[in-house]
């Protein structure tokens, strides 16, 4: 029981990170119908800037806020400069552009902060030490029902719940939130009531990238290093989370993220022989596949009737 509880909380903590990135994916998808393949890499770029601010002696808390600002600007600029003009051409073009952003940012991380280039690819693996945001000494834990809960897991979980609450307030009690929901619900009608949909989409991308940045920082703190391939798997887990929750439901993204974290940790814990460290990503794969086949709109998403 104690072990179960411990695994549950660790899973929730890891899932929190997926939830943060999944939230970003969902916010963008709701507004534009695009899947942002560069979400993970945007987060990674921001994480590197946090590392950089830290190197310059900025206190970690402020560095994280600055990193989120960098993320916001990066996301908003991507929407305005690249996605908006190209989305008039075709969804395929948007897909390619986000893949291009994925590769560009990944290369840029290596180019600026150093990396080891493997032949014919941009994916290096040089690691940079990253400070943990939360107490992470071996004895930083408290005991509940005999389970050792690390303060780190606890703090991460709390942080995500706070972010979730802030977003909930933003969506439901601000004018911008109302506009974002209106655009997601019916973009033509949103224009007709005088909402500048382009501005709203810019903010959506910005907010998505800023939340993603926080996810990246927390994850880097968890693994205590940053490297160029840090976010590949996290992105897939986040996508799995968004798929599970339903791609147009922010609440679903949080629930999905936490579930994926828990499923994965329990699977790795109880079926270590089968899952192990290697096949954790296989769990995400199976979840995506199963959800898309059995319930394509996810747990909380709305299914749309296709019209011809």
């Amino acid at each position, binding site marked *: 029981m104690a072990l179960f509880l411990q695994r549950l909380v660790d899973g929730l903590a890891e899932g929190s990170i997926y939830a943060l990135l999944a939230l970003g994916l969902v916010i963008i998808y709701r507004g534009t119908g695009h899947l942002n393949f560069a979400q993970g890499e945007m987060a990674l770029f921001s994480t590197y800037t946090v590392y950089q601010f830290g190197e310059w002696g900025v206190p970690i808390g402020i560095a994280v806020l600055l990193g989120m600002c960098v993320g916001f600007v990066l996301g908003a600029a991507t929407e305005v400069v690249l996605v908006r003009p190209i989305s008039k051409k075709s969804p395929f073009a948007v897909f390619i552009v986000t893949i291009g952003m994925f590769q560009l940012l990944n290369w840029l991380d290596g180019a600026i902060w150093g990396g080891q280039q493997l032949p014919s690819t941009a994916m290096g693996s040089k690691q940079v030490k990253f400070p943990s945001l939360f107490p992470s000494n071996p004895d930083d834990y408290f005991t509940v029902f005999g389970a050792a809960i690390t303060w780190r897991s606890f703090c991460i979980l709390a942080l995500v719940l706070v972010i979730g609450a802030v977003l909930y307030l933003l969506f439901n009690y601000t*004018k911008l939130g*109302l*506009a974002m*929901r*209106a655009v*997601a*619900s*019916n973009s*033509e*009608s*949103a*224009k*007709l*009531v*005088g*909402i*500048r949909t382009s501005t709203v989409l810019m903010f959506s991308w910005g907010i998505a990238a800023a939340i993603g940045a926080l996810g990246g920082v927390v994850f880097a703190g968890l693994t205590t290093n940053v490297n160029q391939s840090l976010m590949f798997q996290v992105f897939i887990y986040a996508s799995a989370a968004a798929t599970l929750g339903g791609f147009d439901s922010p609440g679903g993204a949080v629930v999905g993220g936490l579930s994926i974290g828990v499923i994965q940790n329990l699977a790795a814990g109880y079926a270590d022989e089968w899952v192990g460290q290697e096949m954790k990503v296989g769990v995400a794969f199976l979840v995506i596949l199963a959800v898309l086949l059995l319930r394509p709109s996810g747990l909380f998403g*709305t299914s749309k009737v296709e019209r011809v």
Partner: protein
Amino acid sequence: MTLLRTQGLTAGYGPLTVLEGIDIEVNEGEIVVMLGANGAGKTTTMRAISGVMPRQGIIEYEGRAIQKASPDAIVRGGIAQVPQGRGTFPELSVADNMRAGAYVRRDSAASVQADLEKWFEVFPRLAERHAQRAGSLSGGEQQMLAIARALMSRPKLLLCDEPSMGLAPLITQELFHVIERLNRDEGLSVLLVEQNANLAMHMASRVYLLETGRIVASGSAAELGADDTIRKAYLGF
């Protein structure tokens, strides 16, 4: 006094030209009805005036040219549209739908709330369902909501795009009474697009008849009702 005037308004989708030069006028305090069969270009006219699609020609509102204005500037100027097919925000609550209607207003939240209450009095069924998702309302209720939402921006001119579509006759009548009352009591000018010719012509100050992208006849309801043009445009004989 002329509130809205278009001159040589043309618009289309990609290679398809839908409007081939439309000249219409709406005077203050009027209900102007635009009739026409499906595909004649009624909705396109509405969307072109609201600025949500590319258009050429002249659109004048209160004497100012607005054919280059953005949709939000047009709403701010006092033109609100009730889109075709109940273009509500189905995932949002009824109250949030109406608050979204007040999006362009710069006055206090309290005065928005006051307007909300006011329209809830006019549309009591919306008040009952203020916390429900708009998508769960019946067709008639959604149409009411779309009108109430448009009114939340305090418009001078209301563009109503085929409010009777898919509604039972009794509900359509009720809807039209509301529009008439708004016109009479609030001094709201209305440009109404309709398929339901007989009903709409009862309350029209003037009528335009649209056929394949151009105005083929115009005049008072009595003038147009007297000849066979409308009958012919709709039924082909």
